[in-house]
Every structure is written in structure tokens, then in C-alpha cells.
């Protein structure tokens, strides 16, 4: 009935609800295998930049004119996080165009904005769909959306709901009230662990360049260039790089609250200290002392740098703080990496 030439129905759409403003797609509140594959793709980074749903109005359950309107971003993971928590609830979902970026990042960077909410309410005729004048937004959208601006722009009152969509059913049951816990950002072990694959995926390209550079530099020696040394010493240095990545982009996120220090570059050093010592112990028999020193410095520098990069994935680092620690951490990392390079190059001549 709702077939249109050239269009394919989204797999998460169950059917359509007839409303005064036309048919509205009703979406599933259970996860499908296809959703799971999509989540895997987005979480590993393969399709992270283009994992979207079309902006517009959707429905869950059997909503009517008095049902709540829940607003979210058009990143598919955000959309899923919302709809999959709504089984047994009748509501309208207003998905606004954030260019496929999640709520928190889109609000911070201006695409989940007061204007976008106001325009979406007009464009998708929400005022004709419902009798009330309330929009429920995720609390983390408050960075980009001014409640008073939305009221001025379209007459709707913004209610900031809980931080996590998992708390939405309780929030709605309690008469749209949040407990303190629902309003506070968290960063649990599971929330940190799920970020690791993307961090690693983003390193694949720089790592590829690094392989070439490392092989080239490792082959330089008394005989100008030795392919055998390039492979042997290059292999060791690449292994050390992988160890640095493990320390900085895997161990640091996992151990974050327990690592000493406030600054992430120092936390990275702490996480990489045992890693560097382990790497040193394993490779020491095959290397001269200057090379051993180079290896330890290199693992420390890469781990510290990657730990510093993880600031961008946390919900508690202020930009002023990140800039403060970068002015200290970055020079230290550059000195360590430079020294590592010089010692590594000096190795064959010792």
C-alpha cells in the first residue's frame, strides 16, 4: 500500500499509521540481525561515518494526539538506542537531521541545535500531529538546544529527559521526572570498552604509513641499506608499536579510573610502563643497549600520545583541560619519540 517506485522500505519499519498529516512509519522495538550487523559495522568504524536514518517523524506502539514526542539524532545507533528501549510504549519519534552524528557530538558541534529542532517541528508538522505542546529531548542535547529558543520558535516546551535512553520508560512512568542518577553522565567499564574498536580502526591508516617508514629506517646501517636488517629490526620496532597501541588505546580506556594522575598523557605513561618493560624483556637479547632504550622510549611515547587522544571519547574532559595537558604532554612525547628515532638509527653503528 505504501510502495513507491524506486524506494525500498527500511527493514525496521513494521507498517504505517494513518494520521491527519499522512501515513507515519511504525518502527520495531526489537533488534534484528541486520541491526546487529549495522551496530558492529559502526562500532568497529567500518561504516561509522554514514550510518543514518532519514530525518522525519516515526512511531512506536500505537500513539495518538496525546502521546509524547521523543526527539533524537539521525545517527542509526542513536535511533536504535531510543526505539529499542520503547517496547510497550506509545510515542512519536522526531528524528532531526544531525548529518548522521550522535546526540552528544551533534549538540556540541551545532547540528543538534535550537534551529534544527524548530525547523523539524515545522517541517514534519508536529503541531498538527499532537494536541499537546511538549517535546522530550535527551538531556545531552542541552549543549546545543536552548529550551527557551524552541518555545519562541515553535511554541513547544522542551523537557530534557534522562541522559540514557534506558531510563526513558521509568522517566515516562514517573510523570516525566528524572532521578539524580538519570541526569548524571557515566563512563562505566562497558561504556569505555565499546569505544576501543573505533580507536583501533582509526589507527589502521597511519599504521600502514608507519610500516613503510619503519622498514626503511630499520634497514639503514654500515652497509648503507640492508634488507635483512630492515625486516629483522623493522619487525621488532613494529611489534613495539603494536605494544604501544595496546597500552594507549586498549589498556588506558579499560583501566582509566585506576591509572594514576589526572592528565591522560600521564595515565598513558603509567599504563605503558609495564608494557614497555615487557617489550624490553622480550627483545633485549636481540638488541644492543641503545636500541633497547629506543624501544622503551618509543612504546612510552606512542602509548602516552594515544592515551591523550582518548580524551575525545570521554564525557568528562574539558577543552581547557585537554589544551592544558597537551601543552605539557605533546612536547614530552615529541622528545621521547625523537630520541627513540635517533637511538634506533644509531643502533647498527654501535
Amino acid at each position, binding site marked *: 500500500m505504501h510502495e513507491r517506485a524506486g524506494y525500498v522500505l527500511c527493514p525496521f519499519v513494521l507498517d504505517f499509521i494513518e494520521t491527519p498529516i499522512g501515513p507515519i512509519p511504525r518502527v520495531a522495538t526489537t533488534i534484528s540481525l541486520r541491526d546487529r550487523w549495522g551496530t558492529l559495522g559502526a562500532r568497529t568504524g567500518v561504516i561509522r561515518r554514514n550510518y543514518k536514518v532519514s530525518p522525519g517523524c516515526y512511531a512506536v506502539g500505537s500513539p495518538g494526539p496525546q502521546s509524547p514526542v521523543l526527539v533524537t539524532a539521525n545517527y542509526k545507533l542513536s535511533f536504535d538506542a531510543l526505539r529499542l528501549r520503547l517496547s510497550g510504549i506509545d510515542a512519536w519519534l522526531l528524528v532531526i537531521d544531525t548529518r548522521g552524528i550522535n546526540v552528544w557530538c551533534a549538540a*556540541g558541534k551545532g547540528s543538534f541545535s535550537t534551529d534544527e529542532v524548530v525547523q523539524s517541528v515545522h517541517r514534519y508538522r508536529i503541531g498538527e500531529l499532537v494536541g499537546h505542546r511538549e517535546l522530550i529531548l535527551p538531556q545531552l542535547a542541552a549543549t546545543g538546544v536552548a529550551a527557551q529558543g524552541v518555545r519562541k520558535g515553535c511554541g513547544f516546551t522542551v523537557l530534557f529527559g534522562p541522559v540514557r535512553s534506558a531510563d526513558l520508560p521509568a522517566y515516562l512512568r514517573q510523570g516525566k521526572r528524572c532521578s539524580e542518577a538519570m541526569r548524571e553522565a557515566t563512563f562505566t567499564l562497558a561504556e569505555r570498552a565499546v569505544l576501543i574498536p573505533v580507536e583501533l580502526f582509526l589507527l589502521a591508516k597511519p599504521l600502514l604509513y608507519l610500516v613503510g617508514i619503519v622498514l626503511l629506517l630499520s634497514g639503514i646501517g654500515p652497509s648503507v641499506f640492508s634488507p635483512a636488517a630492515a625486516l629483522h629490526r623493522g619487525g621488532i620496532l613494529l611489534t613495539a608499536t603494536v605494544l604501544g597501541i595496546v597500552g594507549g588505546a586498549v589498556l588506558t580506556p579499560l583501566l582509566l579510573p585506576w591509572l594514576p594522575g589526572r*592528565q591522560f598523557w600521564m595515565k598513558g605513561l603509567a599504563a605503558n610502563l609495564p608494557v614497555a618493560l615487557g617489550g624490553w624483556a622480550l627483545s633485549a637479547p636481540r638488541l644492543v643497549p641503545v636500541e633497547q632504550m629506543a624501544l622503551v622510549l618509543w612504546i612510552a611515547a606512542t602509548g602516552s600520545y594515544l592515551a591523550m587522544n582518548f580524551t575525545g571519547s570521554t564525557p568528562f574532559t574539558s577543552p581547557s583541560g585537554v589544551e592544558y595537558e*597537551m601543552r605539557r604532554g605533546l612536547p614530552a612525547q615529541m622528545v621521547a619519540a625523537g630520541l627513540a628515532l635517533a637511538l634506533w638509527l644509531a643502533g647498527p653503528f654501535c
Partner: protein
Amino acid sequence: MHGYRYIDGVATLQVDRPRCIGCGNCVEVCPHRIFSLASGQLEVKDADLCMECGACACNCPVQVITVSPGVGCAVAILSAWVNRLLGRKALSGCC
């Protein structure tokens, strides 16, 4: 946010308390719960927990809260530095 503290004394959060009308918007939207209202008077309980997201300032109807908002991300700051150095404007390489 239990178990986490970032660097002390750097957040740019400022509140002009005499002009506050006590509406409570900031108390509600802060994801680190740093504000409280006691008999209509706004208190900043712990300014060092501020991550400068700007939600409070954005939702303050009388603009008494100022904070220099931004993304606390090393990659974003680094690319901004590089862009400034090269005289470019575009921000790239981030979420």
C-alpha cells in the same frame, strides 16, 4: 561522575550570581551535577568537575552563566593548532 576527576583549576565556568533568577535550568541540564539551588540561590558545588559542555549557559534565560564551550578532544585541538599554523580554517579528522 563517581571515580573521575579531571584537571583542577582550568574550567572557564563563571556565574554572575546576583543576576541569577533561580529558574533551575542549569541544575537540570548539567551532566556532572555541579549546580544546586538553595532557597533560590545558585551554588556551584564543584567547578572542577565542569567539562565545559555549555549546556547550562545555553539554557540560562538571563545569560548569567558564561563558559567557553568546546569539544574536549586532543585530536580536535591538535587539528585546530595545525590549521592555525597553516592558515587554514577547516576542522577535520574528528567525530
